[in-house]
């Protein structure tokens, strides 16, 4: 039973409560950095790291953190891990850190982290929280991957920097700002459609 619950906590973030497509939180970074697949995955992994570490630490100290000042404490913990990611990327993958720009420090104010920490990690055991963070992070990363795949393919005609579409056929619109909104809007519509169809099927049974 417990095992099932843990599995549910993990899968929850990937599809059912996907932070981007279903809950619509943490959108800023997901649209801004997804002009190519490398940046998209980089951002996803950076975010997942901060999410896992913050949920782990906060869940570990959930009994010690006083109720009244919990939010400032959460912010400090999240900001500390964000700074760690910032410094690591700056040192080892400077190109990625340049490409992500201001959106790297903005992980601090990403509503996904604050939301999960407040509603999940501060109430659940360490292992469950880590699994939840893994699921949410994975849910975030795969959506980023899909958006950036579409935008990079249509916008610059490449995949991981390898040219697949001749330059004359690319649509610059998709790598500019409006393209992000469009691709994301269509992706939301698609998810909603699929989940509705699935619900109908479930009813029929």
């Amino acid at each position, binding site marked *: 039973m417990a095992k099932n619950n843990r599995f549910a906590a993990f899968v929850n973030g990937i599809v059912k409560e996907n932070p981007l497509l279903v809950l619509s939180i943490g959108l800023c970074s997901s649209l801004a950095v997804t002009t190519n697949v490398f940046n998209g995955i980089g951002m996803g992994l950076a975010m997942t790291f901060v999410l896992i570490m913050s949920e782990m630490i906060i869940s570990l100290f959930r009994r010690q953190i006083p109720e009244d000042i919990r939010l400032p404490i959460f912010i400090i913990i999240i900001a500390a891990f964000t700074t760690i990611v910032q410094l690591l990327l700056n040192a080892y993958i400077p190109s990625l850190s340049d490409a992500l720009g201001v959106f790297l420090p903005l992980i601090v104010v990403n509503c996904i982290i604050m939301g999960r920490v407040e509603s999940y990690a501060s109430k659940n055991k360490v292992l469950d929280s880590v699994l939840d963070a893994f699921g949410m992070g994975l849910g975030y990363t795969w959506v980023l991957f899909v958006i950036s795949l579409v935008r990079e393919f249509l916008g610059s005609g490449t995949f991981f920097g390898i040219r697949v579409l001749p330059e004359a056929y690319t649509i610059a619109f998709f790598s500019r700002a409006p393209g992000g909104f469009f691709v994301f809007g*269509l992706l939301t519509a698609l998810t909603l459609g699929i989940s509705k169809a699935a619900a109908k099927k479930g009813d029929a049974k």
Partner: protein
Amino acid sequence: MNQYLSIFLKSMLVDNVVLIQYLAICPFIGMTSDTGKATGMGIATTFVIILATAVTYPLFYSVLVPLKLQFLETLVFILVIAALVQLVEFYLKKSIPGLYSAMGVYLALITTNCAVLGTTLNCISKNYNYVQSLVYAAGTACGFLLAMTVMSGVRERISSSTVPKFLQGKAILFITAGLLSLSFLGFSGLIK
């Protein structure tokens, strides 16, 4: 003078904070269901963005730089913003209760509005001086207010018209935002 005007227009229209830079999408999608709410949120945020820039900029150059602690900027800035928002809330509650009841609910949300932290960090990374930073902050804030108001106006029209079935719900909002963003791209020739 000209230089300030161009920073202001650039940050407000050409690099609009929501539609071009993709900051603060959460309130842009979440709070624009009616015009009153959207304007309230916009004005409160405008105020906080300018105030936050006015405070964090001197703090960075007079405290963090001499101590060689620039790498702590994210941590320090977010704490300053959170504290600032709290202070403003207390002050308004005590001295201008009318304004507090209109704006108070939004203030708490602004701490995690990425436009605020983003603007303060951008001022540092763009190497602006103090006046330029304030103008940039004011421009960004006006851009946010503009985007919120326009979006809420459009949404009121959407709510009384028929939306294609597969786009109903959140999807139509993003398509609308995309169209708005496309029209804001047209400003890009405004400033050389």
